[in-house]
């Protein structure tokens, strides 16, 4: 079955697939091993698309439905690749009128990413939010957990450059 | 390390007390950087690095640097405790790299407490 699945796992490197198989092997037969496998697999692969789940299900001798059920239950697991950083732009009223809108437009243009999407280089996952209650600092962007206030379009790049 | 027996617990206790005690001619000062998640989030790691660099620059050899957990007062983090031989420990609040450098040079090396940054002196009492 190994040869067959390498096709669907083509978006991952051989090295990653090898690591995945190593993780599966370590937990094979161990009760309750599924969640640790998924956690470690996601560390290596960044996300867990269905083909990966299938490989894990086969490797641990579990039904795919159970693996899928667990992946979708816990918020820690993701089936879509996420960026290394989460970039959120506040579009509450205060931010909107103070240039939040142009920041949002700028991000879409410069980083080639739509709302709710991840940049092709997986650097950012981009989201917009309604008022973060930091209106005094408008316009506000939040990268991961860090709030950056008074971000002008010209300043945007230098702020985001901190996050590679 | 070999497995401990009951009586070893007491020996360790005595050993640690003698090792960590400050004394003439030995370790003269102990600086504790409090590093829980909150401390780290407010910059404790940068403070620790600044301290290590300052020690390196001055070649001080009689200062123990240690880390510990959260002191509980998250809104005043990062917190740093400085204890000099024969003196009460001093807790500094809201530290940053510059304050750490200053506290190191003027308090740890020269013995002058940097009052503006001090939270309190002494230690918590455990009943």
């Amino acid at each position, binding site marked *: 079955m190994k040869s067959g699945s390498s096709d669907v796992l083509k978006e991952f490197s051989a090295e990653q697939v090898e690591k995945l198989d190593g993780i599966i092997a370590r937990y094979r037969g161990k*009760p*309750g*091993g599924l*969640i*640790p496998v998924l*956690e470690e697999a996601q560390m290596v692969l960044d996300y867990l698309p269905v083909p990966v789940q299938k490989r894990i299900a086969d490797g641990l001798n579990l039904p795919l439905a159970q693996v899928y*059920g*667990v992946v979708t239950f816990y*918020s*820690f*697991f993701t089936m879509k690749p996420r960026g290394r950083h989460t970039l959120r732009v506040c579009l509450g*009223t*205060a931010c909107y*009128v*103070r240039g939040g809108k142009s920041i949002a437009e700028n991000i879409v243009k410069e980083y080639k990413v739509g709302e709710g999407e991840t940049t092709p280089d997986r650097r950012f996952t981009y989201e917009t939010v309604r008022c973060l*209650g930091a*209106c*005094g*600092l*408008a316009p506000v962007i939040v990268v991961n957990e860090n709030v950056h206030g*008074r971000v002008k379009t010209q300043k945007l790049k230098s702020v985001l450059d901190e996050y590679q | *390390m070999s*497995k*401990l*027996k*009951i009586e070893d*617990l007491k020996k*360790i206790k005595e050993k*640690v*007390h003698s090792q*960590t005690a400050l004394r003439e001619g030995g370790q003269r000062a102990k600086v504790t950087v*409090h590093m*829980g*998640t909150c401390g780290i989030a407010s910059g404790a790691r940068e403070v620790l690095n600044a301290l290590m660099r300052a020690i390196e620059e001055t070649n001080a050899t009689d200062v123990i640097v240690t*880390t*510990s*957990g*959260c*002191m*509980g*007062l998250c*809104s005043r983090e990062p917190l740093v*405790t400085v204890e000099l031989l024969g003196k009460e420990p001093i807790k500094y609040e809201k530290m*940053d*790299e*510059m304050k*750490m*450098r*200053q506290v190191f*040079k*003027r308090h740890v090396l020269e013995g002058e407490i940097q009052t503006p940054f*001090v939270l*309190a*002196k*002494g*230690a*918590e*009492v*455990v*009943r």
Partner: protein
Amino acid sequence: MKVFRSHLLVCGGTGCHASGSLAVKKALVDEISGRGLAEEIKIVETGCNGFCAMGPILVVYPEGIIYMNVRTEDVPVLVEEHFIKGRPVERLFYKEPGKEDRIPSMQEIPFFALQDLRVLRNRGLIDPENIEEYIARDGYAGMAKALTEMTPEQIVQEVLKSGLRGRGGAGFPTGLKWQFAQRSPGDVKYVLCNADEGDPGAFMDRSVLEADPHAVLEGMVIAAKAIGSKHGYIYCRAEYPLAIHRLNVALGQAREMGLLGKDILGTGFDFDIEIYQGAGAFVCGEETALMTSIEGKRGMPRPRPPFPAVAGLWAKPSVLNNVETLANIGQIILRGSEWHASVGTEKSKGTKVFALTGDVNNVGLVEVPMGTTLGSIIYDIGGGIPGGKKFKAAQLGGPSGGCIPVEHLNAAVDYEKVAELGAIMGSGGLIVMNEDKCAVDMARFFMEFCKDESCGKCTPCREGTQRMLDILTNICKGKGREGDIELLESMATVIKDSALCGLGQTAPNPVLSTIRYFRKEYEEHIRDKKCRAAVCSALFRSPCQHTCPIGMDIPAYIALIRDDRLEDAYKVMMKTNPFPSVCGRVCDHQCQTKCRRGLLDEPVAIKFLKRYISDNAPRPQVKPVGITRREKIAVVGAGPAGLTCARDLALRGYGVTVFEELPAPGGMLSWGIPSYRLPRAVLDGEIDDIRKLGVEIRCNTRVGREIPWARIDEDFDCVYLAPGAHKSQRLGVEGEDLKGVWGGVEFLRDYNGDEEGWRTGKKSLGSRVAVIGGGNSAIDAARTALRLGAEVTILYRRLREDMPAAAEEILAAEHEGIKIEYLIAPLRVVGSSGRVTGVECLRQKLGDFDSSGRKRPVAIPGSEFTLSVDTVIAAIGQTPDLSFVPAESGVKVNKWSCFDVRDDIPSQTSSAKFFAGGDAVTGPSTVIKAIAAGHGAAEDIDGWIRKKNGEPAWVPPSEEQIHIPFVVDEDTEECPQARMPELEAEFRRKNFAEVELGYKKDQAVKEATRCLRCDAEI
């Protein structure tokens, strides 16, 4: 060798470099050579001075002056002043690090002193990654005792006797849990540690794991011995990487030393622990869900029974304890159950760790004996609420808990008391909320959390949380309907009774507890579309306008100031406020407390801007309105409430007559507030405008004296009673009737009615005056007495921060030289031959909390002292004087001497044609609330008349459209409020000239520019 006049040493240490010393040095070189001083002054870069936090540092020799925090922009001034004019620049001087500052010890800081460290006993003292430091503090000694000296039964008995209850939330006795598991048959049993701390605002488990991980391991080994287990799991959330790291280090060291694993300490006992990382599901904090999760499945709860003690993980007997519970165990075994039970309450022994967060000064981790009062935790340990805001409620127990409001600050926090108040202890998250938090929004927030985290297994929780969230969201958006509150309550009961696990059963708690304590806020959201905290932004355009009792369009008139269209601005104000120039001076400006600009630096000075408009634009012309209605209206009392009502009714075409007892209209505005705060010309102008509309004001006419009640009843179709609250409350002490004792408002009224007599010395207070009280009228009386030449002392029974008077008034009084003594209450007024000679006082200390959230003053016995004075002014409160209302009128007066009004028509009294409002209904309140009452009454009166006549409701005439410009700056620079120019204190204390001088144009425009225009709609 060249000789220089001065040497200028620039610190070139790493620290100063980082803070910009190179740029400063360059600027100095340029400046000095630019001014031709290069031959006289030598600049030298030196090594580190050690004042790194205050860099860049300059030292000038030969004077030896040290300058700190020097910026490049300081350089020109510094060179000019110091090197050319020879005047050192003091503002940049090094301040000796407070030589006289006494450093407090940890025991003098309430945050630390009031805590009782048991679970947290090693915090900040040991290196959590060094097992030896833990051992050195008696670590693993409890385990050693349990393994060598105690049987499993003895361990269970000891824990039972200690009274320890589960610290994870429900408070189930730990010993009992262990006993069940111990008695369950089976070779394989598990000890589990619940470190899946997921409540928003809770972080005590994380902190314990990070600071003292071995304490948890030690507790688990003891539990293992008690129940006969060989294997344990710690279920820790993946969001706590540092805790997991430190646990791993701790496990490694413990195994290596033989404190875990095979043959622990050579006793033959085997036990080992594995860490299991939670993958982000709140429900896994529930015990059966947690076990399902360790088994590698979706973490859903299972029905109980069977209980985990019988069939838990992998269907084997298991005990699950949370981190804090386990961290207690080692010390209990080592020091004995009595030691543990020596603190706490009858049913809750030991200490509890709280994570104190939210609107509180000291955010942090707090360990206190069970039974410590909530007020002590928040105020004494937590240091109170920041920014002068008021405490509203504390949320205890996160999304499964409830809130405890201000009236229960004296509650002794333990499992029973907290449950009685509708919250739960939970894991100990204590979120403090100030008055800027909305109760409905909080409930919505927690319900959203529970809905998101509902695992979906049982219908009541899955569907019920969604439905409740929908209702709450609608209420917050202004789409609430009558009956929603009752619907929420009944759904809550269903979910509580039928959900499978703790998450679902407790999910409605925040809703129930906010309804219990803040039902009125729910009703305001639903009926009045009002959010008093100005949080639910769908209900309003801007927080300031929403907070103003009369809904003034604040952003509009501020925008017009920026555009220099003051006439239009005045018109905008007059739409809702007949007294803008009065409010521009004496309003309590609640609008500013909710101004979003305040989150950045300071709120916009709305009050001062309002005054700027009325000072600088002509008052809009007023034309008489013809009387088109046959009903005649009488208004009793020409204060702000009465006059506003009269004006509104005149505008609706009614003939209105106002009866005023005193010689001039204005009520408290004329007769209470002194002219240095509110010049009479200003007030008179605005009252004249009301006359011009056609309102007749008859002064010197007291109902029941100059005109009988029966006449009014006969001649008028409807009567609005707004006589205010013009009678001072009595002190209730001996000697109150001596000559020289004044009531606050009586004194102010007398002064305002006979300025001449007082100023010429015909009337006098004597040379020493004591004013008793802490409200605005106490300050008014004191500042007036001072201006009459007396030496004035204010005596107040609480502390400054508790004074109801406006902070700026208190400050102004102090500037003028008035002494304010706190924590002092009068015991009796002493006198001789019928005249006051002094006031005997008793010092007070603060006791428990009253229902307003302030600490109650308690007399200190034996602390009597006498202050010798010539006059005592009692300004401790006012009540209405409603003696003119005949008992047979049917108009009911309640026990506070105020009018009783109806619930449905809030200004109608118990007798249909009599309406009432202002201070005579509410007790002493603010000008703006009186104006609001007047507006409301006019609406109610007109509505009542029209309804009676079967007429359609009044339609206001179309208003002049005023275009409001919308200009905002992309850049918001931090900048504080423009300061109000004032007369010098030295000068103003001698006369009654207006103290505040008003903004100049540039100040006003600059201040107007600070508005963030929250009203903008896009």
